[in-house]
């Protein structure tokens, strides 16, 4: 009677210890992305082309290219020396890099050393993330009972989303708590307060390292080690042996590639679309995502658990299918909600505020005209036009800078939360069961290496590039604001075809081999 209770308690401890570490790694990784604009002004001044170049490298190289390398480096280590020490190492690398970013002096203080240091630390973050997930998923799966593998590993799956939630939450709280005056608080945050979310990470990491140090090695891996059956060259066995390589390719093209784009479209492109295309206010666009994440997160566990009964394949495939069919109408609805042409303006309430800041010795001035438009449903749109007011009245600025920001009404706000929630439900369908699915595809001795690479190519490259490629498509084909969605729809479509045709729905009852 006591044995199953102890077993359940044991697995809960394992899940908690693994998940907290993975959650912190995701938090560390996301705060850099969420604070990219602030970091750019501190370390990568646009006026300096070399610094701007380093900024581009920091964005692309660390986020996307380095992650699969991390998967190879740490996956190999995990199969050679064990799961426990490897994902302890990734946690320490990630935590110390994040903390160090918070300490690097700005470009104005140490010049080029600043962006170079930040770039190196960001690369280390990418490497560590590449090694973390495979270790955590493998570790939990190798402890879980066969019939509940999907349920237990789905807790690891919640960490990526909760890490984003935590990073957005801590950033917003810090941004508003540095001064009683909101504007002053934001100014302080942009000046030095942005360092706080990075520095906070060290406390979280110390706790997590302490917890992980107390964990034991995975029983399956420990058994292999005692028997002397661990792989001597996991990279070679994973990627040069045809029988395993074919499974790596199937995992990538039949599952993780589609899962990656569905994930990044629902959680990242949706927020970027609401902010940059719909022109919704900075904070509203982020809190919409926070609410949607909060409501949808339990579904990772629901679909993970359900996959233990009905198999992993069809839940993931249906998630992709729903995404492909509904993305255009859903994003179209987001556009329509924020479209002022569908609203009635109250012209009598219009407010115009003009600020003129004279330039020294020229007689010209910087003119900022801020116009507030009010609408009957409660939406307020602020149009800020910045141009030069010339002393010579015959001269005008050819292309003034115009920025729009909409504070949407309560009803529209919750409507957007519901739409993003639905998109994150698709994420939970494709992402909830995938850890168990990947673990079951590969043998214990090369599992860490074999599952990490397709996961990080699918998520880091196919998924991670979604916001960039989608945005790029909207600049190439500027007449259709929804054109960016063709990238995730085509990638998920190909993945769906391959998955339906080639994947098996059978749950592997024995991963102990």
């Amino acid at each position, binding site marked *: 009677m006591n044995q199953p209770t102890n077993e359940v308690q044991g697995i809960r401890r394992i899940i908690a210890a693994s998940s907290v570490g993975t959650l912190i790694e995701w938090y560390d990784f996301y705060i850099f992305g969420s604070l990219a604009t602030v970091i750019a002004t501190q370390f990568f001044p646009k006026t300096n*082309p070399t610094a*701007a*170049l380093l900024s*581009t*490298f920091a964005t*692309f*190289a660390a986020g*996307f*290219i380095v992650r699969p390398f991390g998967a190879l480096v740490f996956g190999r280590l995990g199969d050679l020396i064990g799961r426990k020490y490897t994902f302890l190492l990734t946690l320490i690398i990630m935590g110390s890099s994040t903390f160090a970013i918070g300490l690097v002096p700005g470009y104005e203080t140490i010049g080029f050393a600043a962006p170079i240091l930040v770039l190196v630390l960001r690369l280390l973050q990418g490497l560590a993330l590449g090694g973390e997930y495979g270790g955590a998923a493998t570790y939990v799966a190798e402890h879980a009972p066969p019939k509940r593998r999907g349920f237990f590993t789905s807790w690891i799956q919640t960490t990526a989303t909760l890490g984003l939630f935590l990073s957005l939450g801590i950033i917003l709280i810090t941004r508003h708590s540095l001064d009683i005056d909101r504007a002053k608080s934001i100014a302080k945050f942009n000046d030095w307060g942005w360092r706080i979310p990075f520095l906070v990470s060290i406390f979280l990491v110390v706790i997590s390292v302490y917890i992980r140090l107390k964990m034991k090695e995975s029983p399956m891996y420990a058994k292999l080690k005692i028997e002397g059956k661990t792989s001597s060259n996991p990279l070679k*066995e994973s990627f040069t*042996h*045809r*029988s*395993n*390589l*074919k*499974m790596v*390719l*199937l995992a*990538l*093209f039949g599952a993780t590639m589609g899962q990656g784009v569905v994930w990044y479209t629902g959680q990242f492109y949706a927020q970027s679309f609401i902010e940059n295309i719909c022109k919704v206010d900075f904070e509203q666009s982020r809190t919409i995502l926070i609410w949607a994440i909060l409501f949808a997160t339990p579904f990772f566990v629901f679909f993970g658990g359900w996959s233990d009964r009905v198999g992993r394949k069809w839940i993931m495939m249906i998630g992709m299918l729903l995404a492909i069919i509904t993305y255009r109408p859903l994003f179209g609805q987001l556009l329509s909600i924020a479209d002022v042409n569908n609203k009635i303006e109250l012209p009598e309430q219009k407010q115009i505020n003009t600020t003129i800041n004279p330039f020294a010795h020229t007689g010209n001035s910087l003119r900022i005209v801020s116009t507030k438009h009010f609408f009957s449903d409660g939406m307020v749109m602020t149009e800020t036009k910045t141009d030069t007011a010339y002393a010579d009245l015959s001269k005008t600025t050819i292309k003034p800078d115009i920025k729009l920001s909409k504070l949407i009404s309560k009803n529209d706000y919750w409507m957007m939360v519901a739409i993003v929630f639905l998109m994150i439900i698709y994420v939970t369908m494709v992402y909830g069961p995938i850890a168990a699915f990947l673990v079951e595809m*590969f*043998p*214990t*001795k*090369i599992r860490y290496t074999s599952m990490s690479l397709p996961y990080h*190519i699918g998520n880091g*490259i196919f998924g991670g*590039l979604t916001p*960039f*490629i989608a945005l*790029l498509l909207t600049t*190439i084909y500027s007449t259709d604001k929804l054109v960016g969605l063709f990238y995730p729809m085509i990638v998920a479509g*190909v993945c769906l*075809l*391959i998955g339906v*045709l*080639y994947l*098996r729905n059978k749950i592997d009852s*024995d991963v102990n*081999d």
Partner: protein
Amino acid sequence: MNTTKRIAGILWMIAGPTAIYYLIKTALSEISKKPVIDTKIQWAVFVIVFIPIAIGIVIFGYYAITGEYDRLPESSAEITDQ
């Protein structure tokens, strides 16, 4: 079903080079439109990253044509070529 899997393999083998052709074509056209360092890096990253993936899908297609996916392995012993 196995025949469909094998025939579809041809499609995956064609998909790789086709994707790379269009990727390079678009990259060259976009770089010539806006020849600044940011555009060059961005497109260079896309091309460098997606070429190995395209090779991967060609290999996948080849395996599909040769019947490697007609039956998926049931146990780990079938996955390790020793």
